């Protein structure tokens, strides 16, 4: 495996490395003696033999030999290192070490250490886990680390990020469903209907949607919107607008509005859809399978389930 774009760089690195090492060795040999100096004479100061301006000489205050040997050891170290580890051009090293391999090994090590902590709870039913105070504390820490950025520290959500403390669920609030959601992530898509419905059609559909949850609306518009809703929206949101957990279509008859209940917010959703264009940024729930692993997801799901089932969870 090579990260170089052409074979030239392989040779380039090898040549540079070899020249540097040989250069260092030559320097150590050449600079350990001063040539052209007179041998020490009693009564005179031992100098290196360099003289400037006729009378400025350089004392010879020799370093100990072991100090020189330290330099040699660095050269030996460099050679041993280049044999064992990657660094000598494309040569991967005898040990086959790589930073990604080290990361995987470290992850594995951590997983084996923490696995026993989770194994106890994985064997338990999620509803039981939710009632365990220790598990709840662990779940809370996990939630604050991984989920609170979007869903908030108190799990109350924000615009586009569902509140997890109420009984309203886009994909269902059963423990197993929560596990699936956290494991594989979710992306709820609403198609853009602005072009198909036309400006008046959008206005009428919005009025009808607002009428479903008894928000102030124009009665006539709502009447006109009803058949449009049946044609365009009912497939996902259901004939009565009660939503469909299978595709994550929200219930439109309750008071919970993910993007806001105002006429403007609903109009925007109908016109332009939701989560269509990745370049505009989608509010997707990420898949945590590889990030957290099953043990942590089990605890997390129990914590989240417990948030909206306080009494059942023993709280």
């Amino acid at each position, binding site marked *: 495996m090579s990260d170089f774009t052409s074979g030239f760089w392989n040779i380039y690195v090898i040549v540079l490395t070899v020249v540097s090492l040989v250069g260092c060795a030559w320097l150590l040999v050449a*600079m*350990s*003696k*001063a*040539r*052209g*100096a*007179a*041998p*020490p*004479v009693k*009564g*005179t*100061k*031992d*100098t*290196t*033999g360099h*003289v400037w301006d006729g*009378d400025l*000489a350089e*004392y*010879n205050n*020799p*370093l*100990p*030999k*072991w*100090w*020189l040997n330290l330099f040699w050891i660095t050269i030996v170290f460099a050679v041993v290192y280049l044999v064992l580890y990657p660094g000598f051009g494309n040569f991967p090293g005898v040990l086959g070490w790589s930073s990604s391999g080290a990361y995987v090994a470290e992850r594995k090590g951590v997983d084996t250490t923490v696995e026993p902590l989770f194994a106890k709870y994985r064997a338990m039913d999620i509803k039981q886990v939710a009632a365990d105070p220790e598990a709840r504390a662990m779940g*809370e*820490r996990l939630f*604050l680390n991984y989920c*609170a*950025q*979007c*869903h*908030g*520290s*108190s*799990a*109350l*959500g*924000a*615009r586009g*990020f569902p509140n997890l403390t109420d009984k309203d669920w886009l994909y269902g609030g059963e423990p197993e469903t929560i596990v699936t959601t956290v494991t594989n992530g979710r992306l709820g898509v609403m198609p853009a209907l602005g072009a198909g419905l036309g400006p008046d059609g959008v206005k009428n559909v919005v009025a009808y949607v607002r009428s479903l949850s008894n928000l102030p609306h124009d009665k006539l518009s709502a009447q006109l919107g009803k058949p449009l809703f049946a044609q365009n929206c009912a497939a996902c949101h259901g004939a009565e607008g009660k939503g469909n957990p299978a595709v994550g279509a929200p219930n439109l008859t309750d008071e919970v509005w993910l993007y806001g209940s105002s006429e403007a917010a609903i109009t925007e959703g109908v016109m332009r859809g939701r989560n269509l264009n990745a370049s505009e940024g989608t509010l997707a729930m990420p898949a945590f399978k590889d990030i957290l692993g099953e043990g942590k997801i089990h605890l997390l799901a129990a914590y989240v389930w417990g948030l909206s089932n306080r009494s059942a969870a023993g709280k």
Partner: protein
Amino acid sequence: MNKVIRIEPVPVAAAGQGEVELYEIRRKIYPRAVHGVFARWRVALVIFTQVIFYGLPWLSWNGRQAVLFDLGTRKFYIFGLVFWPQDVIYLTLLLILSALALFLFTAVAGRLWCGYACPQTVYTEIFLWIERKIEGDRLARIRMDAAPMSLEKVVVKGLKHTVWLTIAVWTGYTFVGYFTPIQDLGVRAITWNLGGWEAFWLLFYAFATYGNAGWMREQVCKYMCPYARFQSVMFDKDTLVIAYDTKRGEPRGSRSRKVVPREAGLGDCIDCQICVQVCPTGIDIRKGLQYECIGCAACIDGCDQVMDKMGYPRGLIRYASQNAMAAGAGLAFEWRHLLRFRTVLYTTLLAVVATGAIVGLALKNPLKVDVIRDRGALAREAAPGVIENSYRLHVMNTDERARSFRIDATGLPGLEVVGVEQPVALEAAGARLLPLRLRAPADSAAPGPHAIEIAVRAADDPKVARREKSTFILPR
């Protein structure tokens, strides 16, 4: 600067075709045993520092090791005190105190640290003592090293290295025992069950002790130690250094005890070389102050004994400042010059920082609180006309007992804490991240951010409390 540094031409041998080695083979030094006032001081300090070093990890306090730096959980126990990483200021203060103390001691009496308390000196002293007990004093050691290999030499040398290594391994074990409970460490060491890093540091520290105190010795001070070099910039002409009294000693020369030196045209130095033989760095103090001198005063002890035998007054080599030596003045002169700008400055700074550290420790609050506002949602309408803001409260109970805390918020009319079951229980030396919601009526103040305070108070002790600032946002 009105001092002129004269350039003295050095007679230089004419340039030739020869070669000069720029590295030299180290000459082994065989320091001769010495007895006297300063040697006793050094032994006392060796015992004092090592009783503390080897003994401290074995003490218990509150059912745990009294002194333990637990890197894994990042808690640092020193008797009744528990330091968290947030308390790094106390480590800073300790380092500042150590530095100032070094400055002060060095300004007053030279390299006291090097001569009496530095681990390099202390362990070299211990290893030398063992060497003397096994191989004999200076002459015996020189003879043995020069002798050809023999069974006796192998046995004696082997015994010495075995004892050295035993002490070195015990030192490494003690060192690691400051970071991982030492009794447990001992059990695991015996059952060959050490963790990788524990084994590494144990062996590394043992190797460093054995290598530095047994083999490297003065080389560490001469070539490796930065403190050795920078202490000399703290010297001035009034600093006490180990000095040879040239006026009194020269001209040196051997003589009979019956000879009166002055009549024979001699100084008090009998040129016996004792001062050179006892020197652990192998210098001749009679050449004056040198950078190699670690200020151990072994030559003073050695010379005083010789002076006693000769019937001359002691102190041919003594602690003396350069000014006092030049003026031929005595102790009274040095006492008068003890108070000078830098010593007064160092003492004042030392007193100020020490007072600050002690007061800080005495008033140390065992409760630490951080308030972190949620960024995802600034504000939310919890019910018609009621605004909620979300926070995260990081509550740390650094005390070694479980406590429960009440959390309140002030700063807006009707501001209340919700979403937390009060009181909040925290285990001993435990921390919790607490999701917290604050609630206020929407019309309690003008829209916009408002400064508020979140107070955390221990249920059992009103003094254990913290108030942290944050903001509460009322939307438009």
